[in-house]
């Protein structure tokens, strides 16, 4: 094999790990950390599921591609020159302006190429439908193959830019979106290729790889709890990918969609080839013959119980779970209830659910938390030290009422005061977190309180003895978690580590 090609394959392997599993580059970690994690990731995922080894995937993809490259001598030079550079910069962790400049110019070139190719496709579309000429089909396939290769190179190069851009959230998010676009474009091309492949049976079919990729991102596998570690594949989306409003992008006009189905509906407007039943069908249905692997998702937030590095890692089932989990636990709560103006949510659906019931929460705790159900209030009180049910004002005459109100107000003030007293304790704990870092993973203490359960309903499910045994040591955590603000230092701590 050509050494260039081998390098190229390596780059793809890298780019693959950039795109779908943990995007280690953007994770702002130290080099050793990166290496360790990369290694670990490879061990857990790649070795555990040998059939899905990305190397194999891309070597499988490599076959037809190299033949294409061989046939197109024009572009081989460019590949040979550019890809090693991209590879080097990919491994380079320190910021090198010159390398970055090179990468950028490479990107520019590639984008121009891409534009040309797309124009070519647009120009040929009408002809392709009318003429069933074999040469034309072959040409079209070559074009799409080129398109694919250029896009993959774009991704890898763009990814190699990233480690040199520390703390640049905006760029990273752009990249994430770009990654989304490219992956989408790959899929669309794949569909096109697939259509063509149906016409010519003898041609080696490169689509299997891409179909697998599609499954990875979309299929939410089968239901199942308490899977033994290793029996499922762990995928981890990037923060930007999770938070992106749209995940499916039109390759032609760039419009974004939340759902693949909506994108497919949209694609119909771009030409008749998108109107075929095959193009409109759900992508993953086609690969039903392939062995289905159970996929679970990991939260990219380090220290979270849903993160695959956590000791008691509990995977998330679907992408939707990932999105909701990430927003609920690791994001600001920006949606405030318009009725009570106190409850805040990070997921709109949660807000809407709450607004349906808001005002009807008649079960009140002394900490100010309201519950729509009495048993939930009692579960809350059973769990927390010092919380008592608050008495709704009785119709015991105006004077009595006034007194009772002031009494409860006093109580709440006292509690607030207690919380303030607890503040130093919390900061101590924060300090501990900073000291211990990811080694001890202090968030395991918090996870039952603030991370996993945004609604108090989940609290009840925790076994009581845990809290009974360590009453004193937990008291300040417990009282501290009475307020719902997610910004009480927990999120700052991991960042402080870096």
């Amino acid at each position, binding site marked *: 094999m050509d050494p260039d090609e081998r390098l190229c394959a390596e780059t793809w392997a890298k780019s693959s790990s950039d795109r779908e599993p943990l995007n280690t580059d953007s994770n702002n970690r130290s080099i050793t950390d990166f290496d360790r994690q990369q290694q670990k990731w490879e061990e857990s995922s790649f070795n555990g599921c040998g059939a899905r080894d990305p190397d194999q995937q891309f070597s499988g993809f490599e076959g037809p591609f190299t033949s294409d490259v061989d046939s197109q001598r024009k572009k081989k030079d460019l590949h040979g020159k550019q890809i090693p550079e991209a590879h080097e910069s990919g491994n380079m962790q320190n910021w090198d302006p010159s390398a970055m400049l090179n990468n950028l110019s490479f990107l520019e070139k590639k984008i121009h190429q891409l534009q040309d190719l797309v124009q070519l496709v647009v120009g040929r579309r009408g002809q392709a439908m009318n003429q069933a000429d074999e040469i034309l089909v072959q040409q079209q396939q070559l074009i799409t193959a080129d398109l694919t290769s250029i896009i993959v190179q774009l991704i890898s190069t763009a990814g190699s830019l990233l480690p040199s851009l520390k703390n640049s959230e905006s760029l990273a998010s752009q990249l994430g979106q770009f990654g989304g676009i490219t992956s989408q474009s790959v899929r669309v091309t794949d569909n096109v290729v697939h259509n063509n492949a149906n016409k010519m049976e003898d041609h080696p079919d490169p689509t299997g790889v891409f179909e697998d990729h599609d499954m990875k991102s979309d299929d939410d596998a089968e239901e199942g709890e308490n899977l033994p570690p290793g029996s499922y594949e762990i995928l981890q989306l990037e923060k930007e990918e999770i938070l992106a409003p749209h995940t499916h992008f039109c390759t032609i006009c760039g419009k974004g969609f939340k759902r693949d189905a909506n994108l497919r509906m949209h694609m119909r407007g771009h030409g008749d080839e998108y109107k075929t039943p095959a193009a409109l069908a759900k992508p993953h249905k086609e690969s039903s013959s392939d062995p289905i692997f159970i996929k679970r998702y990991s939260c990219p937030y380090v220290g979270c119980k849903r993160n695959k590095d956590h000791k008691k890692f509990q995977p998330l089932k679907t992408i939707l779970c990932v999105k909701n989990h990430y927003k609920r636990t690791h994001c600001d709560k920006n949606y405030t209830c318009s009725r009570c103006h106190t409850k805040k949510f990070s997921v709109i659906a949660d807000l809407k659910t709450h607004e349906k019931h808001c005002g009807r929460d008649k079960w009140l705790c002394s900490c100010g938390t309201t519950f729509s159900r009495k048993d939930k209030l009692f579960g809350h009180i059973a769990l927390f030290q010092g919380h*008592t049910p608050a008495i709704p004002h009785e119709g015991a005459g105006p004077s009595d009422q006034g007194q009772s109100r002031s009494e409860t107000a006093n109580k709440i003030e006292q509690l607030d005061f207690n919380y303030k007293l607890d503040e130093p304790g919390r900061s101590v704990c924060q300090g501990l977190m900073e000291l211990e870092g990811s080694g001890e993973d202090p968030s395991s203490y918090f996870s039952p309180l603030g991370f996993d359960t945004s609604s108090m309903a989940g609290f009840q499910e925790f076994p009581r003895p845990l809290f009974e045994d360590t009453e004193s040591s937990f008291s300040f955590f417990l009282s501290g978690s009475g307020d719902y603000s997610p910004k009480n230092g927990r999120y700052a701590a991991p960042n402080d580590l870096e």
Partner: protein
Amino acid sequence: MKNASIFATMKKQKSIPEPTFSGFDLLSEEIVFTLLDFLENPVDKKSFSLVCRSFYDIESRHRKLLKPLRSELLSKVLLRYPHVSNLDLSLCPRVTDATLNVVSSCCKETLRSIILSRSKFFGHVGLSNLVVSCWNLVEIDLSNATELKDLAAATIAEAKNLEKLWLVRCKSITDIGIGCIAVGCRKLKFLSLKWCLGVGDLGVGLIAVKCQDIRSLDLSFLPITNKCLTQVLELKRLEDLVLEGCFGIDDDSLAALNQGCKSLETLDMTSCQKVSHVGLSSLTTATASLRQLILSYGSRVDLALADSLQKLSMLQSIKLDGCKVTCSGLKAIGNWCVSLSEISLSKCLGVTDEGLSSLVTKHKDLRKLDITCCRKITSTSVAHITNSCTSLVSLKMESCALIPAEAFVLIGQRCQFLEELDVTDNEINDEGLKSISTCSRLRSLKLGICLNITDEGLIHIGMSCSKLKEVDLYRSDGIGDSSISAIASGCRDLEMINIAYCKSITDRSLMSLSKCSKLNTLESRGCILITPVGLEAIAMGCKQLSKLDIKKCHNIDDTGMISLARFSQNLKQINFSYTSVTDVGLVSLASISCLQSITVLHQRGLTPRGLVAAFLACGGLTKVKLQASFRTSLPELLVKHLEARGCTFLWRDKVFQEELDPKCWKLHFNEIE
């Protein structure tokens, strides 16, 4: 008594103008306190405190318990007794927030126990003051405070040192209030939530979670299910659990319980009809330390149930009142390896000679046996009982109609340790009484509706059973003055006697009874021969008299009432329906400050004016039973005023009833049965 006489002599000495050196000055205050502890009669203490100023001070400091009749004087009383730690306000008809404020400002941290049952007029404000100032409070009894709501419960939760709390019949308190108490009173050891109908699984569950020191828990008649029971049984120190009438608890839920409560000693599951042997066996698996089990009015006591309880190796007492009982079930209980000391089978259907005999022959250490209304048993059972259970202390066998008169002789012959015997409505005769009179430890003897007994037998009792405190001769028509005189002279400790409808009783009996200075209850209903003369003797002799029933004693008139008003200053309860008392007698009664309950029905001599005058004067009244016809004739404002003072009116519309012949009455009674 000795002490009292010493004080009396000292008092006399004081009148002599020789203020000599008193021996008491040498004694430390603790020793005097110890001496004072021996003075049980409050009158003795009063005379002690009147001896001199220092005695007065000592007595003031000595008193720990206070049970005032009126709340109005509380501030002065509490100033006099600064060390009162137990305050019982259950006699005060009206306890308001102001009263509680007085208590909280006077008592402060010395107060440890307060009883507010039967008081209605206080609210959460007074309770709040009380709980905040008297922060050492350990016991609070709020029973029957039906008006109290969750807010009051929340104020109780501020009593952090509280260990005992009664909330019987506090129907307006809900889970929320109980939740506050559970969170606030972490030291609770005793809690009674009987009839708190607003409290359910959640409240009780929270109590079980938060108050880990609970030893005694009364959950009678609560709408609770297995949910909270699981948590309650996890309480590590729970000893006494009452689940009477908890209809939500059934077999299915109990079968789900894996663990019983290891510390449980007493379990009361009266009227839990849905619980059978299946649930019981799962409930009692781990409750090895159970000593008393009450399954009254529950499921059928058969072989399976008896077997399911076999594992309880520490069991001492079992009560199966009102259950259907099978012979095999009783036999199986007889075969338990434990030796029971108490069995109660009252009103059980299906108790036969065979079952009972095999039961009692095995449990030879039996000390208490209740076979009330076991109508099928005969002399065979009595023979077996007396034969094997010679150490019986208490035997209750009311209405065992098939037992012949001869069988009762056996009781006297063999059960020498009897202290309590109930042979109401039996065939016992003078021979039996003569035999029973050998039981010299007898304290309580009930001979109601024993038509075969006469003076002859009862005189033996009066001569031999000197420890008798309670004698019931209700409708035992064969007795006369001589036997009552014998009892009165033989049993000087007599506290209660019932001679209702013993028609041959005359003033002679009352005069002899007047020598029993401890008598506090006299029921002489329907003794048509007694007159005000006899009543005056009682009033003068029995200073402790607190309950008097002279209904249908037609000869009693105003003079009797006047003498009562003059001498019986401890009278609390009186019924003088169908007598000849008029307004004068009633108004004179109003001078008795203790008087709380008056029942007057079919009293021709009474007018609304007399009633108004009497009721207004009688400040401590809590209960008045009146003919319904007075309802309209009494001024409405007065009724409201009295009700605001804490008095309850019970209006009765009973038609005048002619007295039946006793024999005829018994026949009538049997027909109803």
